[in-house]
């Protein structure tokens, strides 16, 4: 049986995503965790390409890899004394957490495998950017504007929270 190359690549990318997610969650070294997030974000962007979402993939790279990841690395460097790695990573409640995670994964996989998804249209790839733009400036105009306000408020809030207080 010949496995098509794109299926093989899909599984490889999925493996990278899940593997680096495991490093993020379980690594003892916080810098390793932060850098492994790069693999997860990049892999998810590749999966978006597989699923035919070109614009979302580009935005994933720009916002997550270019923005959020750099922000997180700054936070790690600012809060973590690189020399003492051991203090950062105790784990607690491993057994209850494992049970909860396993049960949750079981439910999710059962639902995904058991549902007869309507696979009506396995359409060929077509660019999605124009359709997304039309939706943002048409049907979803109000949420779009509110998102802009949310970002502004979050930026002001972040600056207010993280600046040094200078008392007179």
């Amino acid at each position, binding site marked *: 049986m010949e496995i098509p190359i794109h299926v093989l690549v899909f599984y490889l990318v999925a493996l990278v995503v899940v593997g680096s997610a495991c490093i993020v*969650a379980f690594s003892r070294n*916080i810098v390793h965790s932060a850098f492994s997030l790069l693999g997860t*974000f990049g892999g998810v962007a590749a999966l978006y390409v*597989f699923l*035919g979402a070109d614009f979302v993939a580009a935005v994933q790279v720009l916002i997550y890899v270019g923005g959020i990841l750099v922000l997180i690395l700054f936070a790690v460097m600012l809060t973590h004394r690189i020399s003492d790695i051991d*203090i950062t*990573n105790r*784990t607690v409640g491993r057994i209850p957490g494992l049970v909860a995670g396993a049960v949750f994964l079981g439910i999710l996989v059962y639902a995904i495998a058991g549902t007869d998804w309507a696979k009506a249209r396995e359409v060929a790839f077509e660019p999605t950017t124009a359709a*997304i733009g039309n939706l943002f400036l048409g049907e979803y105009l109000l949420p779009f504007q509110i998102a802009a306000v949310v970002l502004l408020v*979050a930026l002001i809030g972040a600056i207010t929270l993280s600046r040094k207080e200078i008392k007179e």
Partner: protein
Amino acid sequence: MLTEALTTSALLFVIGTFGVLVRRNAIIMFLCIELQLNAVNLALVAFSRYVGVEGQVFVFFVMTVAAAEAAVGLAIIISIFRHYRTVNVDNFNLLKW
């Protein structure tokens, strides 16, 4: 392709959930929340391939909230670190009843 993408998304979400439950470092918990948000985005994009492009619009709203959350959350973590010199959440018990 849909089932595989959804299974990847489920795995990613469960790893994130497990990380939030088990780890006690605020930044690691924060990274795990990002994993969960990414998993949800992946599921939305996977469905949007079959249902319509609206799913991808919701991905952008999730990304907006994730970016806002990253900025505010990291600012809170840094200002807590300045105060306590640690990011272990077990030490943050000022508001605990």
